């Protein structure tokens, strides 16, 4: 992928790995990076404080959709009244995960509950899989994970309790202070040009990319950022400051 982008933009592209999202967002704001690969929540948080971030494209999921949903999962045999249950222990993935605090808050809200209710506590499992298996192992009563992960562990008697509204897929975002309009346009055009499903050449080009990158991308106009941007407004302030 790096080589492809390099050819498109006409200058070298270097990959930098960040341990956590907060460092990545900080580097973006300080113009230490020109492009960022982010989930919808980190993007929304970044866009809130930095107006020079510009979405280039959002990547499709394996099912071909450019959005995904999150689910609250519970063990299959467990009868749970979400609106009234007390002493619930909820497994979350990571602080900046969209299916974490953001999506779980939204899903609890549909049952009239909040994550900071006195009868609810939550822990970060570290990943979607660990959060899901934590429920099977009995460590959590509930877990907020991507719906596709919930489906993967359905054979362990995991049940989906509720599903969130769709969020745009992971995307690439440009730093307008660092890249010219022409460069941004060329990168966007390059990402959108590839169609791995309908084009053999597109598949050849992308088959070596990562699982979440190789399904093609959609133009920002087809990625529903507004929902997540609105939802971010309701997040507690510490989320942004704390990794």
């Amino acid at each position, binding site marked *: 992928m790096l080589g492809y982008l390099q050819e498109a933009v006409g200058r070298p592209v270097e990959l930098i790995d960040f341990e956590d999202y907060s460092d990545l967002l900080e580097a973006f704001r300080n113009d230490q990076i020109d492009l960022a690969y982010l989930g919808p929540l980190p993007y929304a948080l970044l866009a809130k404080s930095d107006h020079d971030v510009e979405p280039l494209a959002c990547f499709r999921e394996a099912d071909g959709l450019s959005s995904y949903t999150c689910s609250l999962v519970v063990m299959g045999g467990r009868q749970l009244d979400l609106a009234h249950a007390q002493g619930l222990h909820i497994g979350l993935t990571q602080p900046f995960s969209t299916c974490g605090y953001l999506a779980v808050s939204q899903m609890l809200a549909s049952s009239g509950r909040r994550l900071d209710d006195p009868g609810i506590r939550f822990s970060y499992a570290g990943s979607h899989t660990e959060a899901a298996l934590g429920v099977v192992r009995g460590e959590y009563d509930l877990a907020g994970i991507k719906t596709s992960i919930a489906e993967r562990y*359905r054979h362990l008697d995991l049940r989906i309790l509720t599903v969130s509204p769709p969020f745009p897929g992971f995307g690439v975002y440009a730093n307008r202070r660092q890249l010219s309009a022409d460069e941004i346009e060329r990168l966007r055009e390059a990402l959108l040009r590839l169609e791995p499903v309908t084009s053999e050449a597109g598949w050849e080009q992308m088959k070596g990319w990562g699982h979440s990158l190789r399904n093609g991308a959609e133009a920002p106009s087809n990625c529903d950022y507004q929902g997540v941007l609105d939802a971010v407004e309701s997040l507690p302030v510490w989320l942004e400051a704390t990794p």
Partner: protein
Amino acid sequence: MRGMRFSLVVSGLVILLALLLLANYGREVQTRQYFIESSQEAAIASRLSSYQRMLEVLYDNLFDRKEVTAALALAQQADAQGQARLRGRLYREFYSTFSQLQSNDFRELQFVLADGRSFLRFNRPDLYADPISLQRPLLKRVLQGEVHNGVLENGRVYPGFRFAFPLRHQGVVVGAVDFCLSFKAIKQALNTVEDHAGSDIQFLVRKDLYQAVSHPSSHALFRESEISPDFIVEQEAVDRDGRPDSVAWLYERLLEDTQLPQVLSEGRRLNRVFCRGLGDCYASILRPVRDSLDRTSAYILTSIPMRDVEYLRRSHLSAFIVGTLLILLAAVAVRRWLDSNRRLRTISDHMAEGMYVMDEMGKIIYVNPMACEILRYDEDVLIGAEAHTLFHTHSERQPPLSQFCPIRLRALSGEIYRSTDEHFRRSDGVTIRVSVVSSPFWSDDTLTGSVVLFRDITAEYEDKARLQRSDVAFSSLAEAVMVTGPNGEIQAVNRAFTQITGYSETEVIGQTPRLLKSGRHDQAFYEQLWQSISRDGGWEGEVWNRRKSGEVYPEHLRIAAVSRPDGVITGYVATFSDITEKLRQEQVLRKLAYHDPLTGLHNRAAFLEMFDHALGHAERCRRRLALLYLDLDRFKKINDTLGHVIGDRVLETSARRLRDAVRSDDEVARLGGDEFIIMLEDFAHEDSPARVARKVISLLSQPVVIEHHTLHVTTSIGIAIYPDDGFDVTQLLKNADSAMYMAKREGRNGFQYFTQAMAKREEDRFSLEIDLHNALLDEDFLLHYQPKVDLRTGRVTGLEALLRWQHPQRGLLNPSEFLAVAHEGGVMRDITHWVITESCRQLQEWLDAGLEPGRIAINIDSHTFNSADAYDQIGRTVEVSGISPNRVELEIPESGLLEKSFDDEFWKLLVDMGFELSIDDFGIGESSLLRLKHLPVTTLKIDKSFIRDIESDEGDRAIIRTVVAMGQSLGVRVLAEGVEQASQLAFLCQIGCDEAQGYLFSKPRPAEQIAPLLREHAFRKTLDNVRS
């Protein structure tokens, strides 16, 4: 050679010792490797056994329970949701057990249903329901009720040592529980082995077997092995942190092992020891691990520091050094003993004389190589044989006496026997003469035999005889021979010497060759002679010597140095013959070759030789040299008119006068014909050559009276000076010749110095001459025509053909620019021929075109009509062209008429043929009226110089009037040349001039422009204008 062989033997012993020690060292190292391997094997077996015991306990207490087996039995029958519930329950129930197993280095715990499908993998719960027993033979057997433990197998995620136990419910196998021990556990076991501290252990898994079973998502857990792309190793923390340098270095050494690929493909083991330095050795042990199908599906690669190898090395190295020292000491002792023996043998082996030793019975007990070589027997034939009977004869023909052999018996009696008259017979039957010395052979004061030294003197003996014969030949040689010693003392002379020099042998023996010295050669001559002898070994040449009678004579002498093979001169041989008569004959021939027999002067060859010599001298002494090149003026005329006898007398007289005109040292030579040359050397004044030239001119111009003829001979002289005018004979002669021609052109009877301008002119003339020849070949000549107009009618009476040359570089040239050169270059004859032919052809063309051009006027120069075949050149050429001579007018220059008599038959012949004659350029020559009267001319052409000033010069007008009047009175037509002005024409018409020619009518034009003029009768109008 022997020394080398001895060194080779010693080296061989040292190498043998080294090999023995090396082999022993290898065995020791191998023993240690076997020990390590055995330890490893025991450690692995022990560790697997202890894990098995642990798992058996777990199995009995946790897994082989009714709740578990019932759940599996139910799962076998349940739908997907039911299976999910059972699976979730088992996961929750056994997750803590799995965690404990992980902490004990197990990485997998799996439940498998009786149908062979995986039911639940604790390490990858997302992978399930795959028919794993199809790819895991161990599981297949376990599901059949057996127990198999500690066997290597690949799985969907990891390869590892597998332990599986059947789970029975109500006596029926409903599934199995499967454990996988990580390689880490085996590594830990190996690390506990003694001497394994600091070792590095890697499990190499066969990539193809692993990938045939594993899930693709697991592949990222492995990377390619360093030592083979066919094997993979698990990604470990150590990969990120980096292995010790020594391990990377060992992998590189293993990769260099050419056997490695074959070992890996055949599943064999490999043991190697590598050392980075004296104290830094490692064993690399590649141990195959077989899987449940008895395939080598993995390798354990152990890299262990071998600390005791260093000790082994040191001990073996010490043994090697001590052993080598002992061998060398022994070698030195043996070498000394051999050397002493060899020295003695070497002396006898290299003796130039044959040697054999006999015991007291006369049998040979030792013989040296020279004896074998002389006698041509092999050593083994001679050893043990009796010399007396085998090869000793007393003379060439006489057989040996059987009882008495002086060689043996005299020595046995204690005496030394010497003889030069003994004969030995060689193995090939040839008898040779030998000189023999036989001495007694003493051993511990006891006479035990004799030592015989002998030498083949056959050739020496024959040489002496040959020398005697040579003496006779020497004396009878026709050439004188004188043999001297190295210091020149005469040792021998032959009879011819005495005949030539008059000295007898007794008079000269002991004297030196200086006795014969004539005194004609200086010291330098002899020094050069001796230098040649010492450098080349001889000298040959002619010398003057003196006979005993005092007469000096020339001889041809050859001296050869006689040298020994080492180069030292032992004497000289001089051979010589008297060449007095030969030299006399050569002198006669030389005189004939170098002198002009008529004048007695040197001829051209002699002059050139002397001049060359003089040039060299002048160059060396930086002096000048003058050449005076003489040619007698008009000498040809004397020869032609008075004959060669008178001519030769003139030449003799001239030569004598020339000789008188110069100093005795100056050279005068006759180059040939009437050409002479004078060479002045060492002239003191700048004008000396000019003075000599004047003197020569003055002397030669004196009248010569021969047989009542008083002749006036003059000469023209060209002078060239070395080095101003040239550096070699050719250049100087050429330049002097050019100057001489210039003097002739300047009016003869004078001299000219050569100048560079002269050279340039000559060069230009020469170049033009070449161009003229080419012009004829390339047809570069052309004719222009100028009309002659009748002043009464305006009609064209004729056309004068005027030669032009279209020069490729210089453009169109008039005759004045090249005719002189054409004459001198001998081209004029051909040019005249071309002009006549071309003008006749053109005339015919006009006539054929119906035009009336009148007569064609052709200019004929005096050379042409003075030549012997003038008639052929002119008359025949016109005849051949087909034009009637009546149509041709020949214009003859007035100056040229002086050279051919007016009453010459030639003119009459031309007129009789029909040619008309006109006198060109009339008025500027010396024609007398008398001559005009006799010459059959038809036209006088008044020179244009009179016409030019016709208006201003009354004198010219008077002359023109006179000529016109004279023409009328003689009945000859008068034509005015160069008419350019109407006023000139008016005057000419007024005085009754017949014809005119000039630019007023037409300039000379190419032939194609003439035809229109002829058609238009254009000139009548010109006349009318003038008259009006």
